[in-house]
């Protein structure tokens, strides 16, 4: 649980995206692309889930954006510090096989989450087209890493400060109109994944998203992360985190993820994080 390496991947007016390499022998031995861990920064801390981005012989790499109190406290840890708790690997792994032509769509810090899947899909012999979306040039992460495993790479920024201005789904639509694809895999902000689902619906292409529902124990005990998929209630932690994009009730997920917004704001203010 000791932090071995720390890297600031981006810093946009104080909102940083950070990569931590954490000593975790057992988890590293078992982790597969698409899986996640749950961690606590301190004894009084929350349990939060984070995707396992990379693994080494005895360590795993986690990438997160400083968004709420817990991620901000996590961002304060330095090399040599230890997490209070770390458990995993959790959730189902991504089904890695030869699909053929695959489009990966990553938005914001979600780019970190598509990276392990991209690597594995590439190794399995797929033709990878990757679309990365970022607010601006300075907040874009893992460009080189994803370029190195992609056959084609497209980048969009909200403000046009780097490459094309616009949304990932603009490019996705153009790609699907031009060619036939066998899988679309997407992780990012909920509005983006929802839009991805809408776009791919018309093209009848299998579309997988990895959801970022709120969790407590992350082992199926509480049901905090429940989400409606195809009219049925599923637990993101043990039934997911990946689901068929078209079947997800996006509005419900959006609302459930806001359930503690007031409290989050309050605790951040108290701790002098704005």
């Amino acid at each position, binding site marked *: 649980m000791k932090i071995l390496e720390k890297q600031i991947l981006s810093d946009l007016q104080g909102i940083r995206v950070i990569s931590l390499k954490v000593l975790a022998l*057992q*988890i590293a031995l*078992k982790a597969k692309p698409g899986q996640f861990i749950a961690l*606590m920064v301190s004894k*009084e*801390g*929350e*349990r939060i889930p984070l995707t396992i981005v990379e693994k080494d012989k005895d360590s795993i790499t986690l990438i997160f954006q400083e968004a709420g*109190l*817990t991620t901000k406290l996590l961002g304060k840890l330095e090399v040599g510090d230890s997490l*209070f*708790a*770390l*458990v*995993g*690997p*959790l959730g189902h792994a991504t089904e890695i096989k030869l699909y053929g032509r695959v489009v990966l769509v990553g938005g914001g810090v979600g780019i970190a989450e598509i990276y392990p899947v991209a690597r594995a899909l590439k190794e399995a012999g797929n033709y990878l087209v990757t679309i990365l979306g970022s607010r601006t040039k300075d907040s874009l992460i893992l460009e080189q890493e994803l370029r190195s495993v992609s056959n084609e790479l497209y980048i969009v920024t909200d403000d046009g400060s780097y490459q094309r201005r616009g949304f990932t789904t603009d490019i996705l639509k153009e790609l699907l109109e031009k060619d036939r694809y066998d899988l679309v895999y997407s992780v990012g902000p909920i509005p983006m994944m929802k839009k991805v689902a809408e776009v791919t619906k018309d093209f009848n292409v299998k579309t997988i998203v990895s959801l970022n529902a709120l969790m*407590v*124990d992350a*082992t*199926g*005990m*509480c*049901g*905090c992360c*429940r*989400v*409606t998929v195809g009219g049925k*209630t599923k637990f993101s932690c*043990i039934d997911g985190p990946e689901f068929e994009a078209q079947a997800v009730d996006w*509005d*419900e997920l*959006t*609302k*459930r993820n*806001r*359930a*503690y917004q007031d*409290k*989050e704001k*309050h*605790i951040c203010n*108290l*701790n002098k994080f704005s």
Partner: protein
Amino acid sequence: MTKEPVKVKESSVFERISNFLEVVSGYSPEDALLEASRCLQCKDPSCIPGCPVGINIKKFIGQITEKDFSGAYFTIREKNNFPGICGRVCPAEYQCRKACVLTKKDSIFASDQAINIHFLERFAGDFGMNNKLEMAKIPDQKISGLKVAVVGSGPAGLSCAGELSRLGVKVVIFESLHNSGGVLRYGIPPFRMPRDILDFEIDYLKSSGVEILPNFIVGRTKELRELFKEGFLAVFLGLGAGVPSFLGIPGENLSNVYSANEFLTRINLMSAYEFPKSHTPVNIGKHILVIGGGNTAMDAARCALRLQKMNNIDPDTTIVYRRTEAEMPSRRLEIEHAKEEGVKFRMLVKPEEFSGDEAGFVKKLRSLECKLGESDASGRRKPIAIAGSDFNLDCDLAIIAIGLKANQILTSVTPEIKTNKYGDVLVDAQTMETSVKGVFAGGDIVGGEGTVIEAMGMAKRAALAIKDYLYSFC
């Protein structure tokens, strides 16, 4: 003339609903002596068969009357590793006290006149804890030092570990959460099961040589077969019933509709009642409904009411149940405490649909009135919904406490461990051995939702069988 039962001291309602401190403060030595002296010391005591682990109740109560409190402690410990825990959470009115000769015949639960066996057990347990009484180890040379893995640190796991450790077996407990105790930690609130008692019992176990590895999910972090490869000769599964059931009605995924497990885990395991000192939040409402009639429902309601009080909201927490109070599976004491504290009871109600506001927060529960019909398989009268009796209840926070299912994280990746259709692990009733040689199980993962003491009883049976199984390696 029969002496009146000695009442146990409790904090005042006013005081207790503003905090999470223990409500029942237990017997003083004088109280214990007086209550113990009411025991008739029956020639053929009916209370003992009423105890799932067969504590020699007659003997320990006799020892209390002789002021031999240590003796009473050791008598209980012969059969029960955790008297301080069981004395607090056992539903005695359905078990030993119901079997007490002073309970009126054909009563559904213990009469008031029945000896307060649980309070006496708690008294002896706390005496043992406060005086650091230790059970003598009885190392079994043949199996001493052999390794056994226990999966889960709830009542079953702790009990099995305690039994085997006493024989000199090297026990390692694997716990998936960051803190041990299982349901005693995440489920039962501190006002019923103070954390210092739980910590003491667990620390005691550790000091006796049991190792506990938190943050370790067998089936995920390591597979079952790897444990055998690493030299564990047998494994005990105390996985628990950790998966919450939901009603399956529309609107159940609105925000602020919680499973009791989530609500209680946030409060008990993550200390959300101390937010923002603790970082895990829990929401609180003005009109809280708790659906269900078991201990979990009472625990959730009493937590909810405390949170309202602590947040300067006029307490308005209601238990909604489809049968009546008599059919509630909860301990009677919990029902009494809940009522004293101001929890409202709305009986004969069948929830139909939650509805919410624009932002997705729950606002109302539409329900049907019920009446009681014929008795069902459980011997309780079945609720029958009355068509057209729809009505709405205000509800800006709901807690679903209608039961738990088997935790299937491990069994889903080990199909060789046979389970029934509910996911409960199938075992030999005598040895508690599963369909896999050397793998034993006990507690809620075997019997479905039960009591702490039942889980401990199964764990003890398993420990005995594991001992015999270990002999086969000698």
